[in-house]
């Protein structure tokens, strides 16, 4: 009797086994294919960056010898000489300048944009619709359009060749995108907590500071990160307003090494480029999740 039961079962088992194996094989093939393609495309996109890092360790003569990124005779001379720069300042000085621009700008942005967004999201005042509409309108305005009037304005204020033209617009919530982002985020947060705080005796600023800002933290972190990245990478702003070399941020200093040397020391430039993108890269990877949160803010936040 056992045989009767066993033999058909065995056949079924084998059949099932075969199907399962086929399934697994198909799954494996599709997975290899998928990841293969993804990896290839990813590599293609990343290759310039990888090459940049590799080339920064190459000698000048080797850089244009081939498209490979592995240096034959690795050398750190690019870094050593690049750091010295062709100016009286080291590259460290330019990094310091960059942070002198970036840090006050981030602080100013965070404070001013929060206050403005809080106003738009939570209060009714005459002309609110018109003001908010013009805020959104400035989002659509290309930066270039306002460069010249802005330049004239700052020139007449006597702010040229100082960091003020870079700091001040941001300290007055000049970045409409951030205000908009925070307004959207705030709209998704119920008002009850703020009302509870008012009943608890908090005034408007205390509500903002003790209740709204903590609730807004994820969005604020995104704002700071974006501002950090954009300011680090900003070339045109410093180029227009800053003329003395000792105030140059890294973005200008890089250009400087191209300008002043007749025979370009490419490996120095590449080495300093690597250093330049490093802070932004580190910040991006450390704070990746806040970027995503910031971008999707308002959409799904409940």
């Amino acid at each position, binding site marked *: 009797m056992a045989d009767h039961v066993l033999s058909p079962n065995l056949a079924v088992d084998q059949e099932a086994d075969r199907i399962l194996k086929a399934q697994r094989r198909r799954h494996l093939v599709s997975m290899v294919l998928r990841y293969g393609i993804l990896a290839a495309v990813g590599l293609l996109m990343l290759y310039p960056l990888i090459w940049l890092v590799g080339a920064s360790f190459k000698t000048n003569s080797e850089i244009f010898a081939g498209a490979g990124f592995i240096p034959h005779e690795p050398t750190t001379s690019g870094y050593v000489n690049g750091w010295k720069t062709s100016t009286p300042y080291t590259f460290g000085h330019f990094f310091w300048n960059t942070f002198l621009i970036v840090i006050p700008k981030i602080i100013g942005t965070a404070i001013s944009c929060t206050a403005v967004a809080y106003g738009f999201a939570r209060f009714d005042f005459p002309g609110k619709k018109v003001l908010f509409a013009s805020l959104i309108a400035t989002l659509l305005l290309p930066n270039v359009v306002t460069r010249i009037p802005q330049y004239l304005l700052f020139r007449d204020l006597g702010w040229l060749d100082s960091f003020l033209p870079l700091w001040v617009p941001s300290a007055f919530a000049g970045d409409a995108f951030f205000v908009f982002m925070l307004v959207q985020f705030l709209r998704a947060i119920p008002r*009850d907590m703020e009302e509870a705080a*008012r*009943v608890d005796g*908090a005034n408007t600023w205390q509500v903002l500071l003790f209740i709204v800002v*903590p*609730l807004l933290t994820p969005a604020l972190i995104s704002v700071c990160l974006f501002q950090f990245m954009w300011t680090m990478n900003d070339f045109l702003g410093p180029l227009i307003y800053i003329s003395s070399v000792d105030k140059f941020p890294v973005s200008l200093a890089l250009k400087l090494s191209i300008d002043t040397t007749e025979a370009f020391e490419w490996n120095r430039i590449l080495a300093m480029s690597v250093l330049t993108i490093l802070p932004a890269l580190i910040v991006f990877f450390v704070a990746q999740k806040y970027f995503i949160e910031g971008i999707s803010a308002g959409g799904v936040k409940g």
Partner: protein
Amino acid sequence: MARLQLRNLEKDYGGFKAVHGINLDVADGEFMVLVGPSGCAKSTTLRMIAGLERVTGGEIRIGDSLVNDKAPGERGIAMVFQNYALYPHMKVRKNLSFGLRLKRRPAEEIEQATRDVSNILEIGDYLERLPKQLSGGQAQRVAVGRALIKKPQVFLFDEPLSNLDAKLRASMRVRITDLHKQLKADGLQSTVVYVTHDQTEAMTMGDRICVMKEGRIMQVADPVTLYNRPANAFVAGFIGSPEMNLIDADLSGSTLSIGSQSLALGPAMLERLNPKAASALTFGVRPQHFSLVGAGEDNALEGRVSHVEFMGHEVYLYVNVEGQQMIVVVSATAYDRSKIQGDIVRLQPSQETAHLFDRKTGENVSLADLH
């Protein structure tokens, strides 16, 4: 001294009038419930008392002072919100003490107050937790604690139990009424204004109940009066469960005709009836105030049973009388199948407890002392 007075209070949302000049006095230590269907402006009224909505007309007085233009924090009120509104980034301890810390009270006082409140509400074990780590009932207790710790003159509750499940709601109901009694017994400020849409909550908790409809007060009275002597058809229909049967009837002399049937009104009804009552009326009888009678009995309404619901201790009969649907509740023991011929039933309303309302104005015309 925490009497609350509303005088001709109005709220106008730029053209849309939400509150139409209401007058309400809440005595010191009283538990006043504002109840009504959604959209009756009970929450708006509460929020105006709290100072979260601007008053567009009339006065609000807490104690002896006019508070119309005072900030919420200066009114001597505390509020419990429907969705608790705990500060999500603060631990329970900080949530409780937020108001006191804003007022820069000494640390020992804050510590003592936190301990007292957490003992009363049994939340001592959760002091170091964040609001998201609390269950609904615990969060609700913390929200009540946050109000309690401020020792306000007036407590405001905005549908605080509507987010809880039925069982928890019942126990929180008892807890809040007990708390109110305890505060009163301790001689503390304990005036309460409590907003709900649930008439059971209103009936079980309120010293007095203010029934509202579309921004107007329909009646303010204690639960027993509201139930037994509703001022109008709206209150009669809103209070009580299942709701009162309200059927069209016409009065001529002492005979009430309902469609082709008629009832002879006895002295129990006629003595109460306003002599100036119009003839177009609404006859109001609570589902519990009918008796099933046999074919021989006079003064009964005949109807067709469309549906029977057995609830255990009682039976709900859905009866169609002259094209108007009524609910009749009879106790399971009194439910006598033999009294129903086919699906025809004879119902005798108790005239002692029935009411007559003016069909046009809704006003109760069967409350003798009001005339």
